[in-house]
């Protein structure tokens, strides 16, 4: 009984986290100009101003302040949001499929790996939940809050697998990363 309660508490906490992380990146600016006519591009169109959403490319880690996560690319962000909806509907399979698709777009974004860990946790696959959280941590750079959440997730997963000692070690790692 106690086990079940602790599981759902952690789950609630983590689902909140899923939402928080997926929504962290700034919303893309929408292009408000007239709809673009869909025609064979004429050569002179090359000089036409194309809509911009910042420079296309990799988020530059060097420019993000320490501890902050790089934004998710908009393409992955939409998928993460849809994964979150699927989790809310307890459709874990779809959630995982959408996150994997997002991960093919942003393969080393630690938030996506963490989200997938949460999905696995929610469906009771504690081993993969831990493994994926570990992977998220190796990509997390110095995003301490994210790492702490991962260690909390690992702690819960280990506890539910009956690995009390491992869980305590994970809890210590989480505490070492600062206050919750």
């Amino acid at each position, binding site marked *: 009984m106690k086990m079940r309660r602790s599981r759902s508490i952690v789950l609630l906490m983590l689902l909140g986290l899923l939402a928080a992380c997926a929504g962290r990146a700034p919303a893309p600016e929408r292009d408000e100009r007239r*709809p673009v006519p*869909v025609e064979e591009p004429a050569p002179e169109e090359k000089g036409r101003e194309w809509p911009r959403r910042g420079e*296309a490319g*990799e988020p530059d880690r060097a420019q993000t302040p320490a501890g902050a996560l790089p934004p998710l690319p908009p393409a992955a962000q939409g998928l993460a949001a849809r994964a979150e909806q699927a989790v809310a509907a307890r459709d874990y*399979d779809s959630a995982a499929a959408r996150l994997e698709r997002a991960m*093919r777009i942003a*393969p080393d974004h630690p938030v996506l790996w963490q989200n997938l860990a949460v999905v696995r946790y929610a469906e009771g696959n504690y081993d993969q939940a831990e493994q*994926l959280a570990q*992977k998220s941590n190796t990509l997390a750079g110095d995003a301490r809050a994210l790492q702490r959440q991962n260690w909390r997730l690992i702690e819960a997963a280990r506890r539910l697998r009956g690995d009390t000692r491992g869980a305590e070690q994970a809890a210590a790692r989480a505490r070492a990363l600062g206050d919750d």
Partner: protein
Amino acid sequence: MSRKARKPRKHPRPKRSPARRGWFARLRRGFLLLLVLALPLAAGWGWYLDQRITSHFEGKRWSLPAKVYARPLELYQGLELSAATLEQELRAADYRRGRGPGSFGRDGGYFRVETRGFRFPDGEEPARTLRLRIRGGRIAALEQPGGMLDLARLEPALIGSIYPAHKEDRVLVRLDEVPRPLIGALLVTEDRDFYRHHGLSFSGIARALLANVRAGRVVQGGSTLTQQLIKNFYLSSERTLWRKGNEALMALLLELHYDKDEILEAYLNEVYLGQQGQRAIHGFALASRFYFGRGLEVLPLEQQALLVALVKGPSYYNPRSNPRRAKARRDLVLRMMAEQQLISAEQARIAQGRPLGVVPAIRARENAYPAFMDLVRRHLRRDYRNEDLASEGLRIFTTLAPSVQERAEQAVARRLDAWGKEDLEAAALVVDVDAGEVRAVVGGRDPRYAGFNRALDARRQIGSLIKPAAYLAALERPASYGLGSLIDDEPVQLTDAQGRLWAPQNYDKQFLGPVPLWRALAESRNAATVNLGLELGLRAVVDAFERLGGDPPATVYPSFLLGSVGQTPLEVADMYQTLASGGFRTPLRAVRAVMNRRGELLNRYALSVQRVFDSEAVYLVNHALRGAVSEGTGRGLARWLPASRGVAGKTGTTNDTRDSWFAGYTRDLLGVVWVGRDDNGRTGLTGSSGALTIWGELFAELPLRAPRADTPTGVETLWVENGSGLLAAEHCEGARLLPYYRGLGPAEQAACVGERGRLDRARDWIKGLFE
């Protein structure tokens, strides 16, 4: 399926007649006897035919081959993608230049793509018109009418089908999905009484006879659609009375059991309408794709009429090889439709004025990538029976990237041609590092050959490809080993199990004495590696090898340290994937998902990861393997790729150059290449002169993500003195920046550190005087 209550009655009721004398009575008796004997036989035969028909109709009517799809190309701003690659992917997915769904237009880096829409295992992708711009090897902008778009994906390329033995192919349609004019045309030309007769049409036969007499040749067949269906289903095309009789009987039986619409629907799906190599094109829906490259539901009148024209003789009226005949027959069909007032004379006239509209035949795909398909079949064998794959109409979504596959094939072919040795063979695999998805498999010199698949089945000694296992085992013990630690590149002599002496040589026949660990790996020093392995113990190295994903032999000798173990290229890819992904093992996957014919998801093969090494230790080994490419045995790659791509890799050469290997990876893709002979003879090629050049040729053309700039949190970078392995500083001669486990760098400082310290203090003092 509704079944009518009526059953054919076939009970013989012989009557005993009083005996009479005379020939008439004898004849009559003989006749009755014959009847008594024959009627049960006929009844039995009728029953047998009935069984055949109903079992065919009640059960699964057709075996539908599984359709196998490549991974869809995802499009989003920032994606590494060249215009050439996009065009290659579009063509693989059957896009053509022009207008309409399934077409694209291109002007330099500007593309217009009209997608067809597709139902994926994870949801529907709408049909839409995309505009995108490619600049600097990336998608710079992606939009659709109305504004920007975050993400879109193309329909996946159909890369093959899994057929039953007889290679029938079809796409099923329901009756209500078939355009009415097409059905009208079919009935007008083939069976006008279809909705009135009971399987046989005497007026149809009479009309056909009359028409044939009038024309002086056969212009109409007298068979009803039901008879034609029976003929297609069961019978050979021989023209005997026996067969005609059977056909008629079965047609009557079929009509007894099923209603007209069911029979018509079956006919529309069964009718034979063309041939492509060994692949038989059945049914109107597939024929529509086959001849016009689009679905039945969008065909204009004249194309519907052409399909109906083909019923009479798909090869005689083949619009690709006999366009004139095809047009004449099509126009006849249109005229008959007008005569029967299915269309107006004006509509017929306009339609007759149109071209045939047939698209060039798409190359037969069932054998396009046999080596990859082989991997797909093996993957699916765990969950599906072979007969289900060939008959259930499954849709299999694989991980293949057509553009990567084609480039891998070309790179293999180009290099093998350049070497000019007939019996030289090669195998190659490309894997996505994080997802563990297999993007390309080349099984040999001829990529269309569906035989021996070297990528999966050639188990060959891996030579130096094994070395990272020993170095991982060392670096996992950070208190004892770092990349700057010195190991002995000195002669070593061992006695093997048979009492033979084993004295491994270095490739350059020299021994360098103490060398830093990173250099021993980057330059693939044999003696140093054996000394390191013996220091660690064979067991530790075997353990690391196993965790990487290798399959060690039951008994291990020291020669194991230099790769005297056979692995397939696929197994090597499995091992190097663990390194490339930072110490997490991911089972390699060739299939993402399987759907049934109704579009329901049956299986999804999800990503799973298993941490098998500290990411720090793997980071250090990868650093040394980047060194192998920038300044060690793999430096030949500079011909193809700039150092900025951050390639890490390892060459492997076995005794007397029998096997030439290269395994290399960037941030997102891993490639493994093997070159050798099937008879295990010499190739004259080392890892760097052989396999590496194929790898270079391939990867030079792939869009690659930029390498990650940051180091893991648990790693710090320190200046280390080359000759001593001691902690140094930037100004020290022969010092090199090396990554270490944080806090576990060399304990002692080199002498030069203090010297600089004194110089610095002197400089500060002088500076202080002037401020």
